[in-house]
């Protein structure tokens, strides 16, 4: 597990060179990091995501205007992007509003900046919840076997039989108008729904890994030297199953981000916020929905969030791919 198989001819040579000399041993983590750094696209993706995290945290400092404020007299309705001239002074582009304004005079660029927050949160929180549910269940089912394994796997069968998208819509119409559904403009309900639907995949993956690892000699050896079940799981099985778990986690994030954008676009996701101090005033999905309606008047309301969604999901996909190559030397797809 700790050795990384070379993936390309260039790496082959390097491996031979390093084998010919005695080299200091490297931990799995530093080995994986070396491998990850070689993947240019993954590094670009990671860099972009770090940049986005800064944008999300410092949104109030970066955004030139309040994303919710509607001061139509100054901002103008459908003011064009800064570099587009228009005979009407209320519509002509100005750098006060870099990407122009929408139909009620809100600054598109500021809304875009604040939208970063929802996309990151909506990607990360469900991932953490899914791993927290899926990993223990998979470990327990795989390690204990017997009736517990049967019961837990029946549970995943049940969840699997729910049509995900239809379930989303049903959750939204049944709980969307309750107090719970309104928490954080519907973000909490979205987290819960995404987590309910997606934990089974992780549970099955971890169960499979656990079943395979349980039979390995090193686990046998640890058991023979008197390690209890808890120690076997936390010290021997989980660390060795971590690679696939991390990769699965990295791929959950773009899925969740797309789900938010799609549901909100369909009008069943997040609800708009009119509070001037709201920490999560809008999402890119909402902007796409607005932008589609007003495309003929101001095209950037649609283009900017669309590009933003595409770039963030692309970055996560690159990072997930890089992690898979770095952590799972067997898979070289």
């Amino acid at each position, binding site marked *: 597990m700790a050795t990384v198989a070379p993936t390309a001819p260039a790496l082959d040579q390097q491996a031979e060179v390093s084998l010919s000399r005695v080299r200091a041993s490297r931990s799995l983590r530093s080995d994986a990091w070396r491998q990850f750094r070689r993947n240019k696209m993954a590094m670009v993706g990671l860099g972009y995501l770090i940049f986005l995290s800064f944008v999300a945290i410092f949104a109030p400092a970066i955004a030139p205007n309040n994303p919710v404020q509607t001061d139509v007299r100054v901002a103008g309705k459908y003011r064009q992007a800064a570099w587009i001239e228009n005979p009407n002074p209320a519509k002509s582009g100005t750098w006060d509003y870099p990407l122009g304004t929408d139909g009620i005079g809100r600054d598109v660029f500021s809304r875009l900046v604040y939208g970063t927050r929802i996309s990151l949160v909506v990607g990360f929180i469900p991932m953490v919840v899914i791993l927290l549910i899926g990993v223990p269940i998979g470990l327990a089912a795989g390690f204990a076997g017997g009736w517990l394994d049967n019961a837990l796997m029946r549970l995943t069968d049940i969840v699997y039989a729910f049509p995900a998208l239809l379930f989303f819509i049903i959750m939204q119409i049944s709980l969307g*108008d309750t107090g719970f559904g309104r928490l954080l403009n519907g973000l909490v309900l979205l987290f819960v729904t995404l987590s309910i639907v997606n934990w089974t995949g992780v549970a099955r993956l971890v169960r499979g890994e656990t079943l395979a690892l349980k039979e390995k000699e090193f686990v046998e050896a640890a058991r023979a030297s008197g390690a209890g079940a808890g120690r076997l799981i936390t010290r021997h099985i989980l660390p060795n199953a971590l690679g696939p778990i991390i990769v699965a986690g990295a791929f959950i994030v773009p899925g969740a981000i797309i789900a938010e954008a799609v549901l909100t676009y369909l009008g069943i996701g997040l609800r708009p916020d009119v509070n001037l101090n709201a920490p999560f005033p809008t999402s890119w999905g909402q902007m796409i929905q607005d932008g589609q309606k007003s495309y003929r008047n101001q095209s950037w309301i649609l283009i900017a969030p*669309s590009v933003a969604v595409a770039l963030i999901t692309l970055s996560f996909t690159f990072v997930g791919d890089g992690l898979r190559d770095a952590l799972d030397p067997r898979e070289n797809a």
Partner: protein
Amino acid sequence: MGGYAVRRLIGAVPLLLFVSAVVFALLQAAPGGPTGAYLRRGAGMNPEDLARLEEELGLNDPVYLQYGKWLGRVLQGDFGMAVTSRRPVGDEIMDRLPNTLYLMGTAWLVTLLLAIPIGVYSALRQYSKFDHAVTAFTFVGQSVPIFWLGLILILIFYLTLDNPVTGGPLLPSGGVKTLGADFSIRDRLVHLILPVTMLAAGWIAWYSRFLRASMLEVIHLDYVRTARAKGLRERAVVLRHAFRNAAIPLVTLMALDLPYLFSGALFAEVIFSWPGMGRLFFDAAGRRDYGILMAVTMITSALIILSNLLADMVYALLDPRIRLS
């Protein structure tokens, strides 16, 4: 294998019951209720009529009783009445089903015709320019939300580009056919172009990448080398020996993905105003039409379970090393 299938099908019954109970309970928790639609639309219905309608629809019974009644009717093949149209839910679905199958079938066919050659060819020419281009395309295809592609297609081909002859939009933005026009194959095909492009693009990315990976796995195996060594033509080696084995996981994957065609259809149908099942479900959600919501959910859920079984059986059929137990 017959016994295995029967056992799996029997095991599916409690699953379906559980799913239906959960969805039913969730829908009951929804505020408003089906009759709310009459109030919201200001249909001028007075309170007594409303109360009578609620009584008639059985909305005042306790939840478990309503569920029992619903289940009893469904077992007799009756999904109840659609609230707004006052027509049987079964009829509503049968009206829409052909449209969905027509759209999905076309998209499916286009996907297969393109994904298989792309996947095989990029595996044979690994690290070539073509392969790199395919990899780039599959990355973008997998990361970009599918509805976004639909919007862009509408922007380009409906809003921006004009038909040089008529001066109207180059391609229609929605519907199965031009309203009021006589039937013509050309008109039907023109309406298919945008939704099929949107659906197929995502699937092609996904399947061609998958097939490329499984071709690469197979192509370096000994039996392929043997086939080459005994002097078979490259065509025969690739198609008869390598592809056949590489396609097994693809077929399984496709069987597993069958129900997701339906989810994809929902986006496509909403964006392109396509009168199919997905659109029916989406509109019913807005009207709180529980009969339709329950029926479509249960049909899809049964489809998921069946495709799962199908995937396992197809896998066992194609790969003699697998034994079902």
